[in-house]
């Protein structure tokens, strides 16, 4: 039997593409406005979104685009989420550092100085209680990500996993996501496709 194709999403400074659908940032909107534009495009009603930092907005949007294709349950332990990036929360870190230097550190900014906050935002939005992991690496760690997915499925920690590269620093946006079932992951062609997707 042929397994279904996994759902992908890609968001950069000028393009958002999700399983064939393409949205161009024709107005060259700066990152925050671009995120707002995509948020409006999805017709989401989620006021919390507007309080998030750039990294969290990007991560939440990527998952929302996956959800336009995949029907995913809420109130579940069965969806694992693993994100990777290079810059951790550096964008928020620098803002926090500048606030300290001005003598005005704020909890609203400080809370975003951890990369895994975006995973928390996604958990809250979707009521997902499952396994989560945030890895930091300059280059896409395809070997380790493969090994991590093996642990999730072989040790029955979830029946689906969202894998993401979510990097946001000084207006530079780089987001890639895919959601996989174990059957899809067992397909060698799909595994190669995923490697190519994240490596380029």
């Amino acid at each position: 039997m042929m397994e279904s194709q996994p759902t992908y999403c890609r968001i950069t400074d000028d393009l958002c593409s999700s399983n064939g659908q393409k949205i161009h940032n024709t107005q060259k909107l700066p990152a925050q406005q671009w995120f707002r534009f995509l948020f409006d495009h999805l017709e989401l009603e989620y006021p919390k979104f507007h309080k998030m930092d750039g990294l969290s907005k990007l991560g939440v949007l990527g998952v929302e685009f996956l959800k336009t294709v995949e029907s995913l349950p809420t109130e579940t332990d069965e969806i694992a989420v693993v994100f990777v990036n290079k810059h951790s929360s550096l964008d928020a870190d620098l803002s926090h550092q500048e606030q300290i230097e001005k003598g005005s550190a704020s909890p609203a900014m400080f809370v975003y100085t951890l990369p895994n906050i975006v995973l928390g935002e996604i958990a809250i939005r979707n009521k997902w209680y499952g396994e989560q992991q945030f890895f930091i690496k300059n280059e896409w760690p395809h070997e380790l990500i493969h090994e991590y997915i093996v642990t999730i499925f072989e040790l029955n920690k979830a029946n689906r996993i969202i894998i993401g590269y979510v990097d946001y620093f000084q207006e530079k946006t780089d987001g890639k996501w895919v959601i996989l079932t174990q059957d899809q992951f067992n397909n060698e062609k799909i595994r190669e496709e995923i490697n190519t997707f994240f490596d380029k």
Partner: protein
Amino acid sequence: MVQPDSMGERMIYIGAGNIYSPLGKSLSENWENLLAGKTAIRPYSSLKPEDPPLYLSRFEEKGNFYTRIFDCIDTTLLSLVGQEPDWSKTVLIFSSTKADIEQLESRNIEQSLLDYTCTKLQEKYPAKTAITVSNACISGITALLLAHDLIKTGQYENALVVAADNCSTFVSEGFKSFYAIASDFCKPYDTNRQGINLGEGVASAFVSSDRNIFTNTPTALLGGASANDANHISGPSRTGEGLFRATKRALEYAGKSPEQIDYISAHGTATRYNDDMESMAIDRLNLNEVPVNSLKGYFGHTLGAAGLIETLVTIEQMNTNLILGTKGLENPGTVKPINVFPDTIEKHLNTVLKSGSGFGGCNAAIVLEKLK
């Protein structure tokens, strides 16, 4: 007691642990000072002179971040047979929230990044793969969990797990803005607790499927789980939802029932919300009678290093059948009663839980068991 490979399944062992903290430069020095009831926490003047002093566990000497990490790991490796693992079958897992974040003060962006530190580690300790895990204050536990799972699935034989965080102005000013910092020594689980004391430190340990690689008897690492509260990014769930789920899944995964747990090495940051949340989760798991402690009164909250430091102290407690008192505790006062106490007690320890929670609503728990 665990019989090695009694189930025909791959057993995972943890050993060769070392801690380099303001309380001591080796595991044995830390342990001696813990048994003597000492704390490394001291008052320091604040960034703004008009502010009250900050109570921190900080290295007295301004030594280099990397010197401390290398020193810690080198001692870990000395406790391995042959003093060097087969690096081609080893993964290096670095656990940290902010690593060398103070580099940002002079805008040394590259040096402030977590992978900069991880790469330096891999250059010196040439593991096949190296990765940083950064999951707020549960990082150390999730690093051990990752080590366990990668070895359990036969993808590696060994993991070198390293955890480090610094007591930076970056972090202390942030927690201050949250009003989460105590203006005195922290009081975990106490009715008058008012917040955390920050700390810094380094820990390292070796995880392996080969029991014979350790010069001393290791401890069985039975695995565990992580879970999110799905409730709030900066405050824990009032019902302890994520910690309840993480602990429940960890017990199921390890094949243990709550009655088999002899001791819980908990998080106990001494904030109102965290400690109440933990008591809720412990209550929901019917673990109220099980002895619990927090080590924050000795080390402060060492963030991304806390999970590993506290796991290694937990192993020392298992080896000696002693449970350290919760330093700073006078009058227990959590929303649900739990079994906490100020002075060290004796108890035969066979199977224990290590748990933690952090910003982003994350929670994790692992199960450890004594070997014959």
